[in-house]
């Protein structure tokens, strides 16, 4: 086991897979960083440092620095994938999906079905998402809500460096398009990561981050850590929480969710996306439909309010679900007898 940061798990996994498989190529704006400037290539290495050193190692044919042209980046990834390559496209900020949505939604996601199963589209689209940086409304969004609702996409949200390693390796080796969402507030998180070069995590298998008998807390990404902290605090009071890290929102691990709720009868779903037509509501509906008889309290959803993301520190803090809000929701489910 090596100890590394979330961002280093990204770059090392890409490097290992590019080494292993010559068909893996990477493209995105500034992923080399400094192309055409006096400072020269690799003056930056990607704004998140998730591609540092790759250009020097693999060259311009496989690490393709692009103009700011999101539609062309994702479209080119689609063309590369249909032509036998395994592209990893970087969108820099998840908020930019809007600029390139046709290529994600009408192209990549639909090829295999629309072409009668005769094409594979092994493209990974990586993007940094999430609030916590006071980056305001156009640079802080959680877009899994939108992308999970699109048939034809796999959607991944790693919460730890080890999950980055295992889930990104699966994404790169996958024959279908994968949206890989990296939380920008987690890039500096450190953790143990398995050394096995074939360590992969299959999709649709949630991780039980904490085990308990009383309440099920379901989350992913940055907020998973908040949920774990709440579970640890409540454990001292003798309240046991199952904390489920979804890992992938599509496919969704319904079995782990339902098994847990059948034991606890109480559930809090914590999500960073807006409340309407989103993941939290979707999971609450799943539970109401398939585990109704086990429920001892109404399912609770903890999400931001239905507003754009504000800028000021105080406002962003008020916007984001906090440990306090999660704890209050857990106690509310316990207040039902």
């Amino acid at each position, binding site marked *: 086991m090596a100890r590394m940061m979330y961002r280093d798990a990204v770059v090392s996994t890409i490097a290992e897979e590019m080494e292993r498989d010559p068909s893996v190529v990477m493209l995105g704006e500034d992923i080399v960083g400094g192309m055409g400037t006096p400072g020269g290539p690799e003056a930056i290495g990607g704004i998140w440092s998730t591609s540092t050193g790759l250009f020097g190692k693999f060259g311009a044919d496989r690490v393709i620095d692009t103009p700011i042209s999101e539609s062309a980046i994702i479209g080119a990834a689609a063309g590369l994938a249909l032509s036998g*390559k395994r*592209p990893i496209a970087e969108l820099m900020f998840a908020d930019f999906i809007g600029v390139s949505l*046709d290529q994600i939604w009408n192209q990549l996601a639909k090829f295999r079905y*629309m072409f*009668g199963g*005769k094409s594979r589209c092994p493209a990974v689209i990586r993007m940094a998402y999430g609030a916590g940086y006071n980056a305001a409304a156009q640079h802080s969004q959680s877009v899994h809500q939108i992308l999970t609702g699109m048939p034809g996409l*796999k959607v991944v949200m790693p919460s730890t460096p080890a999950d980055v390693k295992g889930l990104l390796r699966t994404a790169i080796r996958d024959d279908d398009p994968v949206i890989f969402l990296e939380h920008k507030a987690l890039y500096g998180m450190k953790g143990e990561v398995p050394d096995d070069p074939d360590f992969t995590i299959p999709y649709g298998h949630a991780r039980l981050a904490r085990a308990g008998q009383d309440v099920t807390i379901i989350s992913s990404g940055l907020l998973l850590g908040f949920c774990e902290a709440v579970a640890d605090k409540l454990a001292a009071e003798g309240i046991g929480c199952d904390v489920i890290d979804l890992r992938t929102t599509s496919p969704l691990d319904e079995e782990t969710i339902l098994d847990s709720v059948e034991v606890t009868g109480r559930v809090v779903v914590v999500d960073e996306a807006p409340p309407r037509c989103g993941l939290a509501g979707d999971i609450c509906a799943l539970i109401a439909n398939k585990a109704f008889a086990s429920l001892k309290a109404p399912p609770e959803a903890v999400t931001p309010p239905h507003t754009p993301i504000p800028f000021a520190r105080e406002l962003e803090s008020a916007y984001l679900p906090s440990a306090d809000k999660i704890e209050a929701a857990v106690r509310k489910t316990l207040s039902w007898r």
Partner: protein
Amino acid sequence: MQLSREALLGAYRRMKVIREFEERLHVEIQTGEIAGFTHLYCGQEAVAVGVCDHLSVDDKIVSTHRGHGHCLAKGCDVNGMMKEIWGSREGLCKGKGGSMHIADLDQGMLGANGIVGAGAPIAVGAAISLKIDGQGKVAITFSGDGACNQGTTFEAMNMAVVTKAPCIFVFENNHYSEHTGFEYSVGTAKDIASRAEAFGMKVWRGDGTDFFSVYETMREVLDYVRAGNGPAAVEFDTERFFGHFEGDPQRYRGKGELERIRETRDCLKRFRESVTGAKLLTDADLDAIDAEVMDTIEAAVEAARAADRPTPQDVLTDVYISY
């Protein structure tokens, strides 16, 4: 004209297959037997064939919503195409794509497209892939004058130049984007090729109703791109014999316009006049092909009618996540 007799017969046959395929669709659509939206390519056959006759199966093309001609010219099976448009499970895409979304990766045909302008970035990606492989292959994106106003086309042209991708932008200017005239929709630009020129690409222009103009122009374009000079663009001036979609009453056309272009700008007619005038082929040679093609299309329609229909269970095949 340096083409052999066989090459000439083959080119005429391919153009005639597209023409009859679509003329027959035009008739069959009236009966209500074919569902959905269909956009006919008739009138533009010389472009598809004049371009694709230079390509091998390893060269890639990306097509448009008006894609039947490109598909057939690139080698997609006539019966598979007809069955697909009929919505049969025996169709090229098992009846899941229909007219606007036919693809055949085995033929290097990366898909028609229901979204105007969406194909160009995909072709750039395919071209980057071919450049990495280093075999001198190219990717071609067909776009109309409508797509030349989409941002994706501009992004793709710039990206192709930046990455020196062996991508060829073939603009088929048929003067109408849907129901809007070219002179209106492209603003002050005198043509489409000049836009590509502005991105730093070498450009060519040709008469898209003349097979030989297309064929010879494309020879030059392909020599240039296969030699590793990066992307290029070519604009062919052409004509659309039918409406934007089947059922379009074409009220936007000028009086007598359709009759005039059918009379003077029909690429099949021009081909016939050209090769018989030069005594390269006889009317009898071409009539024989016409008869053979009619039989081919008749057989394809009969096969499509008789082909298996999809079952409700087929909705759930070719997916990778099921709920």
